[in-house]
């Protein structure tokens, strides 16, 4: 598997010299450094170490994939989205608000816990919460602006699950794909965006 990844890496250098070499360093050298930075996978992190083909392309192109790669990533990532079995993507918006405001969990100094989504780190949501970041767009009135349409709510759930299936190489994490958030959490966040009673839509 590692050999395959390495071979793919080499193929990439050969076929797209402008990518890695313009930036002055080849993939094999970079790999040597990262291996030394993280010599062994910590216990329990086996499924977490992800530097997949999508991240490879996003990293090497500095989030500006070619049109061909953009389409490839979008299809590949969208195919990973698993919707709730009963098709209902709407959970509890009040719970969603708490999850959006919780930035805890998932670091190497944390004990295993239910992770927060920390939406406010990057997005404005409820106008009452003034401590919000600006790395992502404001999501105030997100559901209202989309007419509270069920298919839009489903698209939002899919974007939370795997953002790259909608916007390849976006800064936003792939919360469901990585198992960082649970299905219920993602439903609650979708409700936070699409419930007409949610303060996000006020």
């Amino acid at each position, binding site marked *: 598997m590692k050999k395959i990844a390495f071979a793919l890496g080499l193929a990439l250098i050969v076929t797209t010299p402008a990518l890695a070499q313009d930036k002055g360093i080849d993939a094999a050298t970079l790999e040597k450094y990262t291996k030394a930075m993280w010599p062994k996978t910590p216990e329990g992190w086996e499924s977490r170490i992800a530097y997949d083909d999508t991240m490879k392309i996003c990293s090497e192109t500095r989030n500006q994939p070619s049109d061909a790669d953009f389409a490839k990533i979008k299809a590949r990532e969208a195919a990973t989205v698993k919707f709730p079995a009963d098709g209902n993507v709407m959970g509890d918006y009040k719970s969603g608000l708490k999850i959006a405001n919780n930035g805890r969990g998932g670091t190497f*100094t944390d004990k295993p816990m239910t992770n927060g989504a920390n939406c406010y780190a990057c997005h404005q949501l409820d106008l009452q919460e003034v*401590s919000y*970041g600006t790395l992502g767009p404001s999501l105030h009135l997100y559901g209202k602006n989309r007419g509270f349409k069920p298919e839009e709510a489903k698209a939002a759930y899919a974007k939370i699950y795997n953002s790259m299936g909608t916007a390849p190489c976006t800064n936003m994490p792939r919360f469901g794909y990585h198992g960082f958030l649970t299905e219920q959490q993602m439903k609650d966040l979708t409700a936070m965006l699409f419930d007409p009673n949610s303060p996000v839509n006020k």
Partner: protein
Amino acid sequence: MRRKIAVFAALMACAVGWGGVASAQQAVDTEKELEKYRQMMSDPMSNPGFLAVDRGEQLWSLKRGTKNVSLETCDLGIGPGKLEGAFAKLPRYFADADKVMDLEQRLAFCMDKIQGLDLADIKKRRFGKPGQTSDMEDLVAFIANKSSGFKIEPQLTHAKEKEAAAVGEALFYRRGDVLDFSCSTCHGEEGKRIRLQGLPDLSKPGKDAQATMGSWPTYRVSQGQLRTFQHRLWDCYRQQRAPEPGYLSDGLTAITVFLMKQAAGGELQVPSIKR
């Protein structure tokens, strides 16, 4: 001096005592308070980071290790024992080790080769905490302070220095792990913030990079410790949800080389003080 520090610590505890759901006004007030104290820091006697500088000075001349000698013959790049301005030119290539080293890697090298010191203990105490000082943090505070007022002069002539800068740049953009983050996710655009915390844009050379790299090592009020740039990167990767990066690993030095390149010409004012 002790009283000044106690007063300062009490005030800072008030200033930083707000949690994640602070109001904007509180945050603005906190920032104003911090700015006042940053200005007070022009008096070095009131920055607790200078306690680390003092301890580092003692450690530099302390005879210890299996060879029972001090670090005073250690060459930090401008000649054995020469300290003035050395930090402003680090990391750099060292022929005797045949690699590019930051200050901490270099100190570990000298502790091992010159003093015969137990590096396991040094590495175990790499980050100070209540009741435990860090020799590395103290030594870095002392040595970096000898470059305070100097301009950052990245060393990029040797092939391995050039490689480190290029690797550091690639690492800066390398996304991965459970949240798909890279350094550039937060530090790739001007004028962005996480919550209310402003983020320096380190993707291009200039004032943000200069202000950032010119202010490490720093005294972290929230942690009550002097922190080095190794710790800053350790904490960045922690917050990225990456696994713990190896202390003194060449990748961290490569990122430092790249950032010092972005910060060329910036003035070091260290140890500084930060939230």
